[in-house]
Every structure is written in structure tokens, then in C-alpha cells.
């Protein structure tokens, strides 16, 4: 590749230092109209930006160039969630330009201001409003310039398709490009700009095709591993057989004898490199290494007891009323312990990085959700200044939270590039991906609850271990409610887990909703009340009632207490500001324990919907992906040894498992756009557990709900209580 860098628009840029102050950005950009804005809600931006040498008062900007092109610069990245389309729609709407005239420069620490990363279904929610404000601000600048140029007051002007014209005479016109050409106007968006109201939207709210689709269907879309540099080496790295293992001895002499092989043994890393990745792999196989492997302290069966034993004192997340009072008011009491094993992200693109060290600058292309934190980590690992590291993020082949970690592969590539003096690509094998992934932590939830004689929930005593409390918030009207979180996610200690853990699409929410909605279902069945009716009887939350009613209407829910033998289920939840309710129909084979999902229907209130097609795509992806965590995906391990190494044992959803899917977007245009990338995933485990219960009377307490666990639950249900 000739160009020393590129962006998602496929254009090249000259390389430069990494930490850029405002004047550097402006110089780098040349002329035009530039609006700086801040998309971050927290104080974090100011602090982190300062320590990183980036501007503290903005973290994204928009520029209109002399050729009329509009470019949005942001540290966010595109990993399939579709922001190259939805963010462009927002800017196009406010500016009055066609979608085609907008480019995105994403995830490049050399061209974009600081951004913490892309996760948490936050891009549209938190990036959207200031982006629209910045676009509106830019349009105001353009209108003022046009007013001078056309000799007409601003009020008499309109802007459409990148042209400002007199409302009374469309022939009196000037293009955005002509207005921006030769200018050097920099504005900072302060507070809220006046943006369009929903009634005036023309681009937002319209179903748009993915703007990255053409590149992706032709094979031209470049992912990190697709970038090739002259003289580049592919690296394979010696891995221990288990986490916690110590290298006793290593002999690389046989590998080093092979032609073209470069061996690096430095700082605990043993790597074998070659211009041909397969030759590198073959040479690595010749490396003789001995490790001390500590005895396994726990495994995938005993981990749940372990987590509870080390979780320490919990934190109260919600408290209302008094549990003893709730117990007294209860006609029936229920206890449930719900479990979920470790989960892998298993993105189709493994962690990949390409590093080049040239003229004192380390440039690293990386598949990451967090380019700026990676930049920092690389600088630290190499002991060089952050300004000397530039991280560029091409298209990312799936993230799901798994590429928001420490940037290990990027650090490895950078170290090896420095050691060899040649560009180095590190692309983890699938087995390395399963070994080094930051798994969704295994977790336990214990619930003690009660209902009164009228079927009202009057007690809720909820304890979650290792998952954190996301989506455990109480939306049922429970007078005596206590929610406690132990060893919350993100604050775990080494003794809690034997390997890396991290966010996995809607971190913690999937197990929390599985536990809550399973428990609710158990109580509804005991009260002999239809599970939908039971939920509606117990919540006055209007948004929740609306999605429950919407999903029931679409599904054609017929009233009946469970277990009805029909195999239908309902579950609901709140995540990332979005309300979602699911209904499912599933067939359970009592002989084999296998579950076939026939139909999944979701109703979602996500506030105003920017791109309905994109939103449905995310919902469908959530539902289908959810089948995996609910039914089949499980990381097996014994101590630090990861037994799950590939897709033969880590079973992702497949075409044969496709249920009929239906999605309903519940209109709530008055509310600003809420999260869309995760919410519909969150109740999938629960809705299937509830459908299985409805079919068989057997309650499943552990995900994934494998055939073996279904058979065990069926056997337990048959035993007299």
C-alpha cells in the first residue's frame, strides 16, 4: 500500500503526530467551515483529554470544504452497527445536504479528537444531539455568508442539497462549496443549537441503505488484516497452555533455522515471524517450550460457588420499603438461583493489528473499539511518548464489547515492529481468540420474592454476583425492594476470574433480565395468572405497558396461565434507555432436550428512530444473536486452561435455527433517540426459558439452556415436590 494511512471513506491522509491541539487540527484540515463540538456527557472527557494532550472542550468536529464535501471527524468506529449511515443522516438532515456528500473519518488518533470508545449503545444517543447541533451551526454560518453573497436577508434564504437559494427565486443561488471555499471559519458549538423538529425531518426517520454496503459486498472494504505494507512480516506468538502458566524453558533454534524466519524473544514474548503467515505458524510449531501449569482452582461447574465465595460485601443499588414487611405481606414466597457461564465474543474477525515504526512514529492499524485507549496502552508498553503513537481503525469485523479491552494484539504488533524494524501484522488465530478473549464473566443471581393473595408482587430481594446491576432496575411496582450487587463487573479482582473478562453486548443485562423475568414467570404460574396479565398487573410504567401491549398484539397472545403446554413465553426489560418486550414460541423435544424456536416477536420503544431500517436490523441481529447466549454458547475451562477453542464446541446460531422474526417499533417521537444496539438482546434468554416452562412445566435456571440442562430440568419437574 502506497498511502501511509486511510480512512473509512477510503481516502489517504498524510501521517502526523498524534496528540493534536485545536490549532493542529485546523492546520491539518486546511480551510473551510469547521464546527467543533463535544459529544461526551461526563467530566471524563476534560480530564482524559488533558492527560492525553488533546483538546478538552471538544471531541468531534464537522467540516465543510471548498468542494462542498462535508466530513465528520470522530474517534468512534464502525463495526457493523451502522453509524457511518445513521450519523451521516443526522448531519445531512440539519445541514440540508445529500447523504452522499458526507464522509466520515473515524477512529484515527492522528486526525480525530479524543473519544473514549464505541460501546454501550451510546453513539446515536450521545453523539447524535451535538452532531445535529454542529450541523445546524454550520448551516447558520453558511446562511450568513450566503446572505452577504446574494444580498438578501437570512430569513429569505433556504438550503437544500448543498445549495442556498432565495425562497422566492430559486435561480438566485450559491453552493455550500462556493461559500466555504477560501474560508477559514472555526466555530465551537456552545450549549444547544436550534435543531429541526420531528415534523420537519426529511432524512432522519427515513429507512436508508447502509452506506458501507457496496464496499462490503465487493470485498473491497478494508479490515486491518487486509492492509499490506512492503516488507511486512506476519507474527505468530508462543502462548501458554493455560492462563497463569509460567514459561520454564524455551528452545527456538529449530524454528530459527527455517529460511525467512525471524525469531523475537523479548520481555517474556516469544514470537516467530515470516512473510508468509503459514510459514510463521509452521515454524512456531517447532519451538520447544515447557511451562509450569498451576493446578486448577475451579472450573466451569464449580465457578458459581467460587464467585459467591470471593464476591465480598455487596453494594446496595436500590432500596425501598422493608424486606421483613414484604415477607409478612407475602402469601407465597419464591427463591431462585440463576446462573450463566462465561461467554466469548467470537467476532468473525479475530483481533488483528499492523504496526509500522518509522521516523520515530509508531503507526498501528488495529481492529479495536477503543483506538484512543489503545494509543495510550501502546505508548506505555513501548515506553515512548503518546504523541509518537498513532492508532488508525479500519472497518472492524465485529466487536460486541470484545475489542474494547487493553489492545493486547496492538501492543504485540508494535513491540515486534520495533524489535524487527519491519512492519508487523499480528492476527490472532481462532484458538488464540478463544484463549485471550475478555469473556463475559460467569455470574449468579439469587432472588427471593413474594406475592400477596391478589397476585401483586410485594417482596423483591435481589442479589447479583459478578455481573453488575445493569438492567436489574425495578420497574415492577414492588413496595419492598432491595437490589444488591456483589463483585460487580469491571471491578473484579484477579482471584475472582482466572482470565480476562470484559463487556459483552449489554454487559450483565442478559443474566439480570433472565433472572428477573424467570422469577416473575414462576410467580405468575403459581398465582395461576396469565404471565402477560401478571406483568401488566404489576407495573404502572407507561412505556413498559406500551411495549408489552404492542408485542402481545403483534404476536396474537392468547390468555392462559402457565404452563399451558403451548410453548409460548413473554419477557421484558429496559436497557440503554430503551424499553423492549419479547414473545416467543418454542418447541421442546422432551426426549432429546433440544429446543427449536419457532417465532420471536419484539416490540421496542427507543424514542425517536433515526433510521428505522437500521434499527430493525439491529433488533433482528439482537434476537438472532440472543439465541446463542440463551441456548448454546458456553466457554468450558478447567482452571486457566480454556477447553473451548473453536466453533465446533462454541456453537453460534446458524441458519437452521432461524425462527420467524417480527419487530415492532413503538412510536415515541417526543423522546430523543435511545440505544438500539443491545436492548432486544437482553430478554432473549428469559423469553425462551419462559416458553420452555410454558411447554413443559420445567424451569431452567442456567444459561445456556443446552439440551442436557433441559433434560435435567424435565427430570426435576417430574419428581414430586
Amino acid at each position, binding site marked *: 500500500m502506497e498511502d501511509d494511512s486511510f480512512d473509512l471513506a477510503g481516502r489517504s491522509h498524510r501521517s502526523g503526530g498524534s496528540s493534536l491541539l485545536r490549532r493542529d487540527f485546523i492546520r491539518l484540515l486546511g480551510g473551510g467551515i469547521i464546527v467543533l463540538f463535544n459529544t461526551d456527557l461526563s467530566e471524563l472527557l476534560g480530564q482524559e483529554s488533558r492527560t492525553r494532550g488533546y483538546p478538552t472542550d471538544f471531541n468531534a468536529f464537522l467540516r465543510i470544504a471548498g468542494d462542498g464535501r462535508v466530513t465528520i471527524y470522530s474517534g468512534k468506529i464502525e463495526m457493523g452497527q451502522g453509524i457511518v449511515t445513521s450519523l451521516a443522516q443526522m448531519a445531512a438532515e440539519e445541514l440540508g445536504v445529500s447523504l452522499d456528500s458526507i464522509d466520515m473519518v473515524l477512529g484515527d488518533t492522528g486526525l480525530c479528537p479524543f473519544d473514549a470508545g464505541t460501546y454501550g449503545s451510546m453513539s446515536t444517543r450521545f453523539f447524535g444531539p451535538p452532531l445535529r447541533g454542529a450541523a445546524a451551526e454550520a448551516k447558520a454560518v453558511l446562511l450568513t455568508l450566503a446572505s452577504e453573497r446574494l444580498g438578501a436577508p437570512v430569513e429569505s434564504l433556504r438550503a437544500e442539497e448543498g445549495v442556498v437559494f432565495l425562497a422566492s427565486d430559486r435561480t438566485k443561488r450559491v453552493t455550500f462549496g462556493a461559500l466555504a471555499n477560501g474560508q477559514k471559519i472555526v466555530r465551537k458549538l456552545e450549549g444547544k443549537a436550534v435543531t429541526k423538529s420531528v415534523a420537519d425531518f426529511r432524512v432522519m426517520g427515513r429507512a436508508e441503505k447502509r452506506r458501507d454496503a457496496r464496499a462490503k459486498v465487493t470485498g473491497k472494504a478494508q479490515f486491518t488484516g487486509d492492509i499490506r505494507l512492503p516488507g511486512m512480516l506476519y507474527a505468530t506468538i508462543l502462548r501458554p497452555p493455560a492462563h497463569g502458566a509460567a514459561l520454564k524453558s524455551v528452545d527456538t533454534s529449530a524454528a530459527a533455522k527455517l529460511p525467512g524466519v525471524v525469531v523475537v524473544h523479548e520481555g517474556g514474548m516469544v514470537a516467530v515471524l515470516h512473510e508468509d503467515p503459514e510459514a510463521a505458524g509452521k515454524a512456531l510449531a517447532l519451538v520447544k517450550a515447557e511451562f509450569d501449569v498451576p493446578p486448577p482452582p475451579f472450573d466451569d461447574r464449580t465457578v458459581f460457588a467460587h464467585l459467591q465465595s470471593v464476591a465480598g460485601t455487596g453494594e446496595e443499588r436500590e432500596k425501598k420499603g422493608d424486606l421483613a414487611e414484604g415477607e409478612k405481606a407475602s402469601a407465597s414466597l419464591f427463591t431462585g438461583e440463576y446462573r450463566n457461564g462465561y461467554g466469548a465474543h467470537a*467476532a468473525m474477525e479475530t483481533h488483528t493489528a499492523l504496526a509500522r515504526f518509522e521516523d520515530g512514529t509508531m503507526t498501528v492499524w488495529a481492529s479495536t473499539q477503543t483506538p484512543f485507549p489503545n494509543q495510550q496502552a501502546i505508548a506505555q508498553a513501548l515506553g515512548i511518548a503518546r504523541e509518537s503513537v498513532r492508532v488508525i481503525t479500519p472497518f472492524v469485523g465485529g466487536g460486541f464489547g470484545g475489542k474494547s479491552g487493553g489492545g493486547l494484539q496492538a501492543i504485540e504488533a508494535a513491540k515486534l515492529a520495533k524489535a524487527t524494524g519491519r512492519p508487523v501484522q499480528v492476527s490472532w488465530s481462532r484458538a488464540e481468540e478463544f484463549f485471550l478473549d475478555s469473556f463475559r464473566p460467569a455470574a449468579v443471581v439469587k432472588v427471593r420474592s413474594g406475592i400477596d393473595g391478589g397476585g401483586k408482587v410485594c417482596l423483591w430481594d435481589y442479589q447479583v454476583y459478578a455481573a453488575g446491576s445493569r438492567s436489574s432496575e425495578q420497574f415492577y411496582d414492588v413496595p419492598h425492594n432491595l437490589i444488591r450487587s456483589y463483585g460487580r463487573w469491571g471491578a473484579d479482582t484477579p482471584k475472582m476470574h482466572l482470565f480476562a473478562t470484559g463487556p459483552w453486548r449489554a454487559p450483565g443485562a442478559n443474566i439480570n433480565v433472565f433472572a428477573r423475568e424467570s422469577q416473575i414467570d414462576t410467580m405468575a404460574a403459581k398465582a395461576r395468572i396469565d404471565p402477560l396479565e401478571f406483568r401488566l398487573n404489576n407495573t404502572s410504567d407507561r412505556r413498559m405497558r406500551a411495549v408489552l401491549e404492542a408485542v402481545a398484539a403483534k404476536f396474537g397472545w392468547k390468555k392462559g396461565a402457565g404452563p399451558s403446554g403451548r410453548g409460548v413465553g413473554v419477557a421484558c426489560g429496559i436497557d440503554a434507555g430503551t424499553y423492549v418486550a419479547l414473545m416467543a414460541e418454542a418447541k421442546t423435544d422432551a426426549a432429546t432436550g433440544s429446543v427449536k424456536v419457532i417465532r420471536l416477536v419484539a416490540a421496542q420503544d427507543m424514542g425517536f428512530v433515526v433510521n428505522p431500517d437500521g434499527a430493525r436490523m439491529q433488533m*433482528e441481529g439482537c434476537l438472532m444473536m440472543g439465541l446463542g447466549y440463551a441456548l448454546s454458547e458456553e466457554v468450558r475451562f478447567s482452571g486457566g486452561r480454556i477447553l473451548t477453542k473453536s466453533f465446533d464446541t462454541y456453537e*453460534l446460531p*446458524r441458519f437452521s435455527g432461524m425462527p420467524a422474526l417480527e419487530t415492532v417499533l413503538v412510536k415515541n417521537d417526543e423522546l430523543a433517540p435511545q440505544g438500539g444496539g443491545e436492548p432486544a438482546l437482553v430478554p432473549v434468554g428469559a423469553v425462551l426459558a419462559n416458553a420452555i416452562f410454558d411447554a413443559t412445566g420445567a424451569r431452567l435456571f442456567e444459561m445456556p439452556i443446552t439440551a442436557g440442562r433441559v433434560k435435567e430440568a424435565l427430570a426435576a419437574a417430574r419428581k414430586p415436590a
Partner: protein
Amino acid sequence: MKESVSFRLNGKPIRLEVDSDRTLLWVLRTELGLTGTKYGCGESLCGACTVVVGKEAVRSCRLPVKVVRGKEVTTIEGLEKDGKLHPLQEAFADTGGLQCGFCTPGMIMNAYALLLKNPKPTRGQIQAGMEDNLCRCAAHHRIVEAIERASHVAGGK
């Protein structure tokens, strides 16, 4: 050991001096610079590396390049003709049969072979034929819809 390997690639004859035990996947991605074909697992389990040899969809990650000697190999780069997308490519883009896009070339090539053999497949035949191609973004429904749509347009031609 390097030896000469000749085959047809995307309609054009090609001759390489390579170690013929190397896999087609990495010969495509390195020697030939065709990076549309992806590494996903290296064990024929995910389908990201799918190319078409003759009329068969094959997993290039386990296929020694010598096996395609004298054969016709089609990769994702070979489907677009004179700047015009293949009906399958059009359909994947139009229906949104992709998200992150990493599995997409393999999906399209597997579907291409499917339609070569069975130009008008039923929905069930499409599901069965695509079973071993994995999509982590879980765009399965739109992928099936895209293949159905393409089969109506052109029967895979």
C-alpha cells in the same frame, strides 16, 4: 519447495511460483493481494474463506493451492463485471444482508455456488445450503432474503 502452479482466477489465466502446499486462502491474500477472502478460523468451520472452484463452494483455508491446478477459481473480487455488481451482491446490499461485513464475501461465494447448482432454491434449501457459514452479527434473515431475491432476478447467473 516452490513450483509452478497454473489455474484460472476470476476468468483469467494465472501462473505462480509457490510452495504448492500453501493454502489457497493465504496465496490469494498475500501473493495475489486479493484480500476479500477472509481468515475466520482456519479449520473450515466458519466459511469466511469460501471461494468457488469450478462450481463448488470450497473452504480455501484448508485447501492446498496445488489442488486448484488447471481449475477455475472464483473469488468475491471476480463477481463484479464491468463495474456492475452481481445480482447477489446487489441483493445483499439492498436487503442489508450484512453488518460488520467480515463474513460477507464468504456468504456471497457460498450462495453463488448454491445458485449455480440450484437456481431457484426454496427457503429451506437456502438455509440448509448456508448452514455452515457463520455470521456473528446474526444477519441471517436478511442474508436468506437476499439470496431469495437474487435467485428471482437471475437464478444465480
